[in-house]
C-alpha cells in the first residue's frame, strides 16, 4: 500500500499505564522527581493518589506506534508538547496521521501529526509531530 497524505497510522494501545514501570524508569533515568513514584506527593498536589507518568514514557507509546508501522530505526525526528499529565491506570492510545510526503537525500519521508489520546478521560495529553522514513 502506498502511503499518501491523509493516511491514518495504525494506532498503538496502552490499556493501563503501570506504576511499576514508572518506578523502573525513574531508576534508569536517575530521576529524583517524586511524582513518578510517590503517590503521597501527587495527593498533596491535589491530583489524587495516582503517580504521574514520565514524559518520555508517554512519548515512547508514539515511538512504538511508528516502529510497528514502518519498522525500528524509521524515526528521523520527533517534536512533542506535553499538555496534560498521564496517570497510572490511564488507558491511552497513540495515534497519527500523515501530513506530507517528501524526498530528501534519496529517502522518502513522511511528515506526520502524532498524539496520545486518553480513553478514560476523553482528552489529549500529548501532541506533536514526527518525520518517518518510509520503508514501503
Amino acid at each position, binding site marked *: 500500500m502506498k502511503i499518501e497524505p491523509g493516511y491514518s497510522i495504525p494506532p498503538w494501545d496502552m490499556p493501563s499505564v503501570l506504576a511499576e514501570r514508572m518506578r523502573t524508569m525513574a531508576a534508569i533515568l536517575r*530521576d529524583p522527581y517524586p511524582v513518578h513514584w510517590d503517590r503521597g506527593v501527587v495527593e498533596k498536589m491535589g491530583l489524587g493518589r495516582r503517580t504521574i507518568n514520565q*514524559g518520555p514514557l508517554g512519548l515512547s507509546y508514539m515511538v512504538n506506534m511508528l516502529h510497528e508501522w514502518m519498522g525500528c530505526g524509521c524515526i528521523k525526528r520527533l517534536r*512533542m508538547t506535553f499538555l496534560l499529565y498521564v496517570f497510572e491506570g490511564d488507558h491511552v492510545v497513540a495515534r497519527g496521521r500523515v501530513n506530507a510526503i517528501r524526498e530528501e537525500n534519496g529517502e522518502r519521508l513522511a511528515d506526520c501529526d502524532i498524539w496520545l489520546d486518553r480513553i478514560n478521560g476523553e482528552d489529549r495529553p500529548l501532541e506533536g509531530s514526527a518525520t518517518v522514513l518510509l520503508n514501503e
Partner: protein
Amino acid sequence: MTNPLPSEASINKLVGHKFPGGSYTIAHWENFLLTECTGAEPLPDNLAHPVALFHVPILGAGTSIAEMFSLGQAEPGASIRIESYDWEFYKPLQEERPYDVSGVITSAERRQGRKRTFDRIQFQFDLHDEESDDPVARTIVTWLYRRSTQ
C-alpha cells in the same frame, strides 16, 4: 507554601552554561528494561529504544536531572513541567556503542503566566559516534520551572 523568587538575572545568566561532556554507552540490560517500560518487545539488531534519547544525553553530558533542576533553582515538590522535546535522529541509537555527548543551556528566560511566574529553560545535547565522530542525534529539552511567588 511560598518560596523566594530567584532573581531574573540569575536565570538569564544560565544561557551558555556548558555541561562537562563525556561518553555514554547504552548497556543491554538498560535498554532491555527501558524498552519493557514502554510496553514494547526488545528491538532487533542491537537497536536501542529511541526513548533513550532522554536520559543518555543528560547522563552522558556529565549532568543529571537533579542538577538540571538545581541549576534552574527548582522549588521543592512538583514544580517542574515539561514544555516540549525536539529530538533528531541522524542514525538509530544502538546498545553497547559509545557516544560522545555535549550539552549546553541555549535559552533561559522569565515568563509570566496567567496564574503564576515561571522560568523557561532550554537545554541542547548533541551525540556523536565515538569511533567515527559522525553526528548521531540532537535533542532539545524545554522545561518550565514554576514559581510559587509572583
